[in-house]
Structures are given as structure tokens and as C-alpha cells.
């Protein structure tokens, strides 16, 4: 596998390429002419004001939504996905939830169990919590289980669709560190959708900014250093500089709640 070639050394072929993606909901154009390419092992954060279509773009890239125009080229082997709400099966235990994609892959019961427990260990889920139902778990635990479910399939690419929006600040940081750590350990690339610029610069190699009206990617900025190896003070200053001086981020906090996402 060419995954040995770590970013930022020149990657062989992109792991994900979107070209000329356009999409319309009920006749209203939400995305138009979006071009995007991610290198193997690259973690890219996609930011933009709410309602600009960044979630829709992730869903198109993951194959959940059929785009009206354009092409999606997936160079990776297998992807996982983490959504904003955990989307756990309410009737299944945490263990069975983590093993759910493995069940879809047709793995044997014993193998499913082993791999689910291994994935749970990677997100620091207690073995005692694995027999609990989602209703018995806290919000953070549920999202951990959702991340474990994505990691259980041994993906080389993961889609994160605003996964930590509903969590409090301390928990958010812990789970961000968890994503950074597992991305480094398992060497998966990721498309991380968020509207939190600080989250974006902590997690990603590169921050992509979506156009306010979904007309393509307005631009991108490479964040110096490797995720996990950066100083938080530097990152705060970087975000401050982005917001104060960089015209690319001018509309990042525009909110029009009348627009349907």
C-alpha cells in the first residue's frame, strides 16, 4: 500500500477527488462547480458559514447523496463516517453498534466481537460500557462509540460531519485529540466538516474554506506543523490572524438561519 508515504511529501495519487460537483435541492442550487482534491493521508478541514452546503458536499463525497453534476473519484480503499448525531442503533448495545459495519461486511461473530473491542479500546471506551445500550451512555460516550464504529472497519479515509458540535468545550478537545491520535496511528486521511475554526486548525493539515453560496471552494490555507504537534497558543494566534487579516475567512461567521442546510 502506498500509505507509507506520509503527507506532506509528494503523494502518488489523490485519495479523494471531486470535480465540478453541483447539487440542487428542490430546484434551489446549493452547490455549484466544487473542485477538491485530497492527498493520501491528508486530513482536510472544510469550514464555511452554516448553510453553505459543506455537509451536503461530504454526503456527496461519501456516496450518500447523488450529485446533480460532477464526478467523485475515490482513491481510498474503504471509508468510515462519523455524523453530527451519533446515529447508534437504540436497540443494540455499544458493542453491537461498533460491530454493525463489520456485520454488513459479513464477518464472523467472534471476529466482529474482537475487532469491536479493539476499536473501543482505541477510543478509550470502557469494557464495562460495551454492554450498555445507547440510552445508558452519556453524549460523549455515544460519540466515542460512533467514532469506534467508523474505526472498526479499518478505514483509510474517514468523513467527519460536524461530529463534535453538540459537545461541551472540554469534551470536544478530548475527542479532537482522539481523532488526531488515531489518524496518526492508523494513517487515515479525512475530510472534517466543521464551522469551528479552532477545531479545524487543531485537527487538519489544511483548512479549506467553502464559498458562502456553495459556489466552489473559495480557497485553502496550510496549517504549519503536524496535527497534534502544534502549540495551542500559536494556533489561537493563527485563528486570530485568519479572522482579523485574511479576506478568505471574512464570511466564516455569517449565519442565515432561514436557509435550510
Amino acid at each position: 500500500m502506498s500509505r507509507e508515504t506520509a503527507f506532506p511529501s509528494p503523494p502518488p495519487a489523490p485519495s479523494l477527488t471531486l470535480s465540478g460537483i453541483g447539487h440542487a435541492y428542490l430546484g434551489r442550487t446549493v452547490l455549484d462547480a466544487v473542485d477538491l482534491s485530497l492527498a493520501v493521508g491528508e486530513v482536510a478541514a472544510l469550514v464555511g458559514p452554516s448553510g453553505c452546503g459543506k455537509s451536503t458536499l461530504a454526503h456527496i463525497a461519501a456516496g450518500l447523496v447523488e450529485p446533480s453534476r460532477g464526478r467523485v473519484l475515490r482513491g481510498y480503499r474503504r471509508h468510515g463516517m462519523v455524523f453530527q448525531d451519533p446515529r447508534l442503533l437504540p436497540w443494540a448495545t455499544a458493542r453491537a453498534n461498533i460491530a454493525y459495519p463489520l456485520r454488513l461486511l459479513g464477518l464472523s461473530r467472534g471476529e466482529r466481537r474482537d475487532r469491536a473491542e479493539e476499536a473501543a479500546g482505541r477510543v478509550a471506551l470502557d469494557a464495562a460500557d460495551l454492554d450498555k445500550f445507547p440510552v445508558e451512555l452519556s453524549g460523549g460516550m455515544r460519540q466515542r462509540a460512533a467514532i469506534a464504529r467508523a474505526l472498526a472497519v479499518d478505514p483509510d479515509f474517514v468523513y467527519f460531519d460536524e461530529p463534535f458540535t453538540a459537545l461541551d468545550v472540554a469534551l470536544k478537545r478530548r475527542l479532537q485529540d482522539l481523532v488526531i491520535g488515531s489518524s496518526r496511528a492508523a494513517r487515515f486521511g479525512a475530510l472534517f466538516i466543521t464551522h469551528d475554526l479552532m477545531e479545524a486548525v487543531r485537527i487538519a493539515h489544511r483548512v479549506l474554506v467553502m464559498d458562502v453560496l456553495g459556489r466552489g471552494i473559495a480557497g485553502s490555507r496550510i496549517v504549519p506543523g503536524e496535527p497534534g504537534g502544534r502549540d495551542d497558543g500559536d494556533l489561537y494566534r493563527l485563528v486570530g490572524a485568519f479572522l482579523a487579516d485574511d479576506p478568505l475567512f471574512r464570511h466564516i461567521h455569517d449565519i442565515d438561519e432561514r436557509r435550510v442546510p
Partner: protein
Amino acid sequence: MGKTMVRTILSVLVDRLGRVGQLLWSGWAGLAGLALFAALWQAGHERYGGFILPAPLATLAAGVEIAAAPAAWALAGQTALRAVEGFALAAAAGTAGGLAAGYSAATMRLARPILTVLLGVPPIAWIVLAMIWFGSTDGTVVTTVLVAATPVVFVGVAEGAATRDRGLDDMARAFGAGPLARLTTLGLRHVAAFLFPALTVALGSAFKVAVMAELLANTGGIGGALATARANLDVAEAMAWVLIAVAGLILVEYTLVHPVRSEFERWRNAARPWGVKR
């Protein structure tokens, strides 16, 4: 390896035993309710006399006397068989139709007026029609039960299928699940929570309609025995037959429907705080 295996099996066994115990313990509440009902019955008996309303104990004695006769068992078995036959057909037809309607809005729109018509026709009219079609046979009873019980199952399943969580569907698709895998791992599991209450209601109405159809179509069974008791003005025996019909229903419900349902509802129970369980 063997040790952990034994431990897993043991913990599963203990868990299962605990849940059986919980079910049995919940029987006390049911018993208390029945005792209250019997007290009211006794009060009615003392007010109106033995001819209008025989005492519960006298009814019970008549019931025991009937139960001692093998012929009575054959009659009860006949009714139970017809009711369960109609119920099984209704469950199959209702589930298939309900799934189709829940997954396709067009089918739902087509089915809704048909359902209104089916529910609007009183069961007694169906008995008359079925008697013309099938004469005094099993077919009359089974058809009536089928027509009476199917809409209940249909509505329950259709509602379940229509209220499935589309977010979970998307999640499954993100992990590569095809339509069939989504139906078997998500759709049916969600529908089951709606199916079981509907089945309980359908089973109850299956027994009631079966007895009614037997009485009116004069096709034997408990309904036929009730007709004889009425002809003899034997109120105690008539009530004893009612008791037997109800006992049969309770038996099927608590040995079949409830255990299966509680297996499916474990996660709901887990959400309840201590002391509120059941």
C-alpha cells in the same frame, strides 16, 4: 479460553433467569388486579342474585367441571385452532401489506381507503358473508378472524415502517449497506417494536371474533357451547365458557407474545430508572 466461555454462558444464564424472575414477579400485580375484579363480581352477585350473575366461585366450579371433561377440551381446542389459524394469516398478510405501505407512499395512499372500508364493515356482516361463501365450516370462522385482525396488524406495521429513522438508514449506507441489508438490520428491527403491540391486540380480537363467529354460524367450538348454554338458560355454564376463552387468551399472550416482546424491548427497559421497571 474455556474459562471465559463458561463465564460468558453463566452470565447469560443469570441474566436470563433474572428477567424470567422479573416477569413472574410482575404477575403479583396482575393477580391483584384479577382479585379486585373478582371482588366487584362477587358484589354484583350478592346484589342481583345467582340467576342473573352467578358467584365467581360457582362459575369457577362450573369451569373446573367443564375442564374435567375431555370433550370440552376438544371444543376449546377447536376454537383456539381456528383463532390461531386466522391470526397467523392476518399477521402474515398485515405485516406484508404494512411493510409495502410503510416503504412506498403510493401504496399507502391506495391502501388507506381500502382499510377504512374494511374497518367500517362490522364483523357481524363479514360473518353473514362468510356463512354464505363457506357454510358452517372452519372457513367461515377463519375468514372472519382474518378480516377482523388484518387491519390492526397492517396499521401497526405501516406506522412502524413509516417512522423508521432515516438517519440510521444513511449511516448504514455510509458503511456500504444495500437495500436488503438495511431492511433486515434496521427496518424490520424498528418495525418489530410496533408489530408486537399490534399482534397482542390482533390476537385478542381473533379469539373474540372466533367465538362470536362460532356462535352465530353454529359451527361448534366454544361459541357453539355458549349457544347451547344460552338455550338451556344455564348462566353459570355460559360464564364458565367465557372464563375458559379468556384463560386461553391469557395463556397464549403470556407464554408467547409477552416473552418475545420483552426480548425486543430490553433497551427501552434499560432506560428506565430502578423501581419503575414494569
